[in-house]
């Protein structure tokens, strides 16, 4: 079925003669066969969003519809790969066309030539339905890829056998109750704008360990939760996203570079293979899928990129894995939406964004969650969705930030003044929040009794610091009571010695729960000891100047195998130092 172009305006093309095409069908445009998607139909004319540069396209050129919606290929070979916004493999494009991305390149998303060792887990005669595991492929050293019956297929396995297969060769044949035979390959296709089905959704109840102290301790996120990271430029959004991609205790990470810098993706590509997962010891790249639609790549594919990413995430979730999807940045996605909406001459909503911005964002984040997957073994999987937001001028009163904040449960607000003082991660503890603190309390109480109490105490001290600072600005620090000065000192320690975390120093980049717990305990202990000593008449400045203080300042840099002993030792030294002060005070 083919039509003829009548109008070209940037990425928007209008073609007639497409009466039989469906909305959302993928089309091939012009002699270069550029990839596009039908957005609207009027009579037999279709408005098409083209995913590639349309320079050189004019009226009269042919448009061919493929009859299928924009889909991704799901199967072995996804991991460690880097794709553009419509799942074209960038490394293979580079082999085909060189350093720049030429137009109309046709490369299969999953390598058709590579053979994978398929181990059958089911046998002929088994009754299966959508989601049941037929067998497995060791895709990377870290991840066992489960080959599942595609959703919607059910019946009796006619034949199945292990061995080496490419992704498009059938590994099993399933006969349904109407007698139809389905050849099941290791590869499934799924339309990106449709969420993959599951059995049940559950409330999130386990935390996602990010290794970042400000996140895990103050504003934790649950596995299956949603979070937003808004911040002006230079506040470290991307570093936070990279840290989460590196250290989160999930099985799979899908990282979507949506309209951001090319060098950031290069950074991930170079760095991840070298880094080791602190839990499995495997290279981090082994669990990562990258989607890169950088800012200079066509804007329409940027709109598709977050759907491509989350669909891949859902596929791994369906295997029973915990997946984290990191989208950097959803603002660029919204801008792509705005640009296409403008070209379609739709009535604009706030700030030129289309009226459906909020509902599209909500639909995206709603694809996160903890679910019981399809299949009869009632396995559970989760998707944690974390999106960076880049508000113009850092002002979160704009539509994308506001629509996002209405949906997400965790808000890590980045602050430029913290970034200027090189307080990283620059997550502001006064504006950020996590609605999972209560749901996760049980888990923390069970695993680390007392952790939550310390957290609440630290939060209270930081809150109090803010109001005390107002007073200090008016009347100076000396006019504060000793107790209040102590609060300021402890707050300073919390900020500098606990919340600040250097992503570029190996010992500090990742903190286990236990290390966070003990380090926070150390600081709060110092506060308690000082207050006790003050009651006995110890001099405040003397307490602030005890030698072991400097050791607390360096405590976060202690290596994972040594910190427990070191912290115990510091605490002992601290006690001794303070003891001396109170004893000395009594002698004189």
């Amino acid at each position, binding site marked *: 079925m083919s039509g003829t172009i009548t109008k070209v305006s940037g990425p928007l093309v209008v073609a007639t003669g497409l009466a039989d095409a469906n909305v959302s069908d993928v089309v091939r445009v012009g002699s270069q066969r550029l990839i596009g998607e039908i957005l609207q139909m009027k009579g037999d004319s279709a408005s098409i969003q083209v995913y590639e540069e349309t320079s050189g396209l004019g009226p009269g050129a042919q448009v061919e519809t493929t009859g299928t919606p924009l889909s991704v290929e799901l199967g072995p070979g996804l991991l460690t790969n880097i794709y553009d916004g419509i799942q074209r493999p960038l490394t293979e494009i580079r082999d085909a066309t060189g350093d*720049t*991305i030429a137009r109309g390149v046709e490369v299969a998303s999953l390598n058709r030539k590579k053979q994978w060792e398929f181990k059958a887990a089911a046998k002929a005669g088994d009754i299966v339905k959508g989601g049941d595991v037929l067998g497995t492929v060791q895709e990377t050293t870290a991840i066992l890829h489960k080959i599942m019956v595609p959703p919607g297929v059910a019946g009796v396995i006619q034949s199945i056998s292990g061995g080496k297969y490419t992704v498009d060769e059938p590994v099993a044949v399933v006969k349904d109750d109407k007698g139809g035979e389905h050849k099941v390959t290791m590869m499934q296709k799924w339309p990106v704008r449709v969420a993959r089905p599951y059995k049940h959704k559950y409330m999130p109840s386990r935390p996602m360990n990010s290794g970042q102290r400000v996140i895990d301790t103050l504003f934790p996120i649950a596995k299956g939760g949603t979070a937003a990271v808004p911040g002006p430029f230079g506040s470290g959004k991307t570093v936070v996203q990279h840290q989460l991609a590196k250290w989160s205790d999930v099985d799979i990470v899908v990282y979507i570079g949506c309209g951001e810098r090319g060098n950031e993706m290069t*950074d991930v590509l170079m760095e991840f293979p070298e880094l080791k997962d602190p839990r499995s010891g495997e290279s981090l790249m082994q669990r990562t899928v990258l989607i890169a639609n950088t800012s200079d790549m066509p804007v329409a594919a940027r709109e598709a990129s977050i759907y491509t990413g989350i669909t891949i995430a859902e596929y791994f979730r369906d295997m029973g894995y915990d997946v984290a999807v990191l989208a950097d940045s959803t603002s660029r996605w919204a801008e792509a939406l705005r640009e296409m909406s403008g070209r379609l001459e739709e009535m604009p909503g706030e700030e030129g964004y289309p009226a459906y911005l909020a509902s599209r964002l909500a639909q995206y984040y709603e694809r996160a969650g903890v679910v019981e997957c399809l299949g009869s073994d009632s396995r559970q999987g989760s998707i944690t969705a974390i999106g960076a937001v880049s508000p*113009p001028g850092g002002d979160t009163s704009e539509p994308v930030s506001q629509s996002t904040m209405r949906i997400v449960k965790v808000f890590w607000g980045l602050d430029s003044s913290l970034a200027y003082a090189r307080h990283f991660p620059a997550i502001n503890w006064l504006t950020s929040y996590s609605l999972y603190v209560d749901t996760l309390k049980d888990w923390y109480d069970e695993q680390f009794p007392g952790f939550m109490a310390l957290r609440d105490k630290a939060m209270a001290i930081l809150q109090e610091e803010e109001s005390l600072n107002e007073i200090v600005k008016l009347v100076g620090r000396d006019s504060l009571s000793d107790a209040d000065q102590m609060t300021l000192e402890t707050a300073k320690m919390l900020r500098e010695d606990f919340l600040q975390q250097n992503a570029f120093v190996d010992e500090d980049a990742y903190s286990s729960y236990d290390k966070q717990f003990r380090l926070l305990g150390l600081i709060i202990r110092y506060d308690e000891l000082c207050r006790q000593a003050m009651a006995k008449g110890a001099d405040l400045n003397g307490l602030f100047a005890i030698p072991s203080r400097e050791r607390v300042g360096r405590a976060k840099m202690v290596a994972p195998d040594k910190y427990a002993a070191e912290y115990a030792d510091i605490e002992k030294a601290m006690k001794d130092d303070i003891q001396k002060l109170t004893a000395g005070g009594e002698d004189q």
Partner: protein
Amino acid sequence: MIREYQTISEIASPLMMVRGVEGVTYDELAEIELPHGEKRRCKVLEVDGDVAVVQLFESAQGINLAGSKVRFLGHPLRLGVSEDMLGRVFNGMGEPIDGGPAILPEKYEDINGLPMNPSARAYPAEFIQTGVSTIDGLNTLVRGQKLPIFSCSGLPHAALAAQIARQARVLGTDESFAVVFAAIGITFEESEYFINDFRRTGAIDRTVVFSNLANDPAVERISTPRMALTAAEYLAFEKDMHVLVILTDITNYAEALREVSAAKKEVPGRRGYPGYMYTDLATLYERAGRRIGKKGSITMIPILTMPEDDKTHPIPDLTGYITEGQIILSRELHRKGIVPPVDVLPSLSRLKDKGVGEGRTREDHAGTMNQLFSAYAAGKEAKELMTILGEAALSETDKKFAKFADEFEQRYVNQGNQTNRSIIETLDLGWELLSLLPRSELKRLKVEQIEKYMPKKAEE
């Protein structure tokens, strides 16, 4: 196939409608010929059936609907590139304006370029010594980075950019370099300042200038930086040169973009700038970089003046979201007579972490960088408190920080436009300043490094 039409139905500068066209394609280059033979260039913005919307690159003055002809050339706007471009001056459309002969192009390149494949990029990590402490020490520039200068009207950004162009070198190498300078809507005097500086240092023979001055057509400003980057890509990735691209002033570029967008009656975004300005700017800035297996590189220093000194204005804001950091100039420091007036705290180089340290600069670089930043921030805070409450209200430590902030501005930042400091000098100066502070406050420095590098008098 050349197609010529005399069917211009409407002109609203810089846009034109041509009816009855056939075979015209999007983004195609066209020429308009006036009755007396003068030719001007334009490009296709939209084709709807047999109507083409065409954007003029020059003024519409004198165009006559009945007597003018439009000729569609069948290809997008291109630049003929050759190594002979070095040492020459071109206008914003890529035509020589220095009185010299035309360039014999080795080939023609589409000025829009193609997006660079992220998997073909090489991560920039080679330290460039600019001789400016605030950049080398704190906001390190690396080869292949795009690091803009955010300035305000009346501040000496040109002097800083010229200083960088003059002093920048990669330690221990002697590779061929080139400068591509794009003057976008700036005044003759500002452009001449750069060119004279290149002339004085002899760099002019290695420089390609694309010049669109304030009195040249505004629409041409949209193609000027693209011409410059096309030349830069050719020199870097085909002729193995290390190219430094200076684009000044991006604010003029963005205004030209707004002008065209308004003429097209597009829905405006913030402050009337088009909603696609982020993407548009990105297609310029992202052309900087390095490629795997290629010797050359493009390092970019765009300069922009922030309207009303406002960093949240769309032009600096969107730029900051795309570029790999920014150097911000401060009016306050300028008033204090500090040269160059680099406002250190909001300035940033995102690529510094891979460009500094052992084997690149010195092992203590990252630590001192962080420590100087946080100490200066603390010092400025203390000084603020001091202005409200008087010096007596400060603690001893705060007083030391306040003193540090002053010394830091006077000695570290204020180095003048002619001083070329080596990275070792910059780092040692940093240690000297840090020795003003109590050691217990220096938490970001490693103990071994304090022992090794801290000037001895601090130990007493």
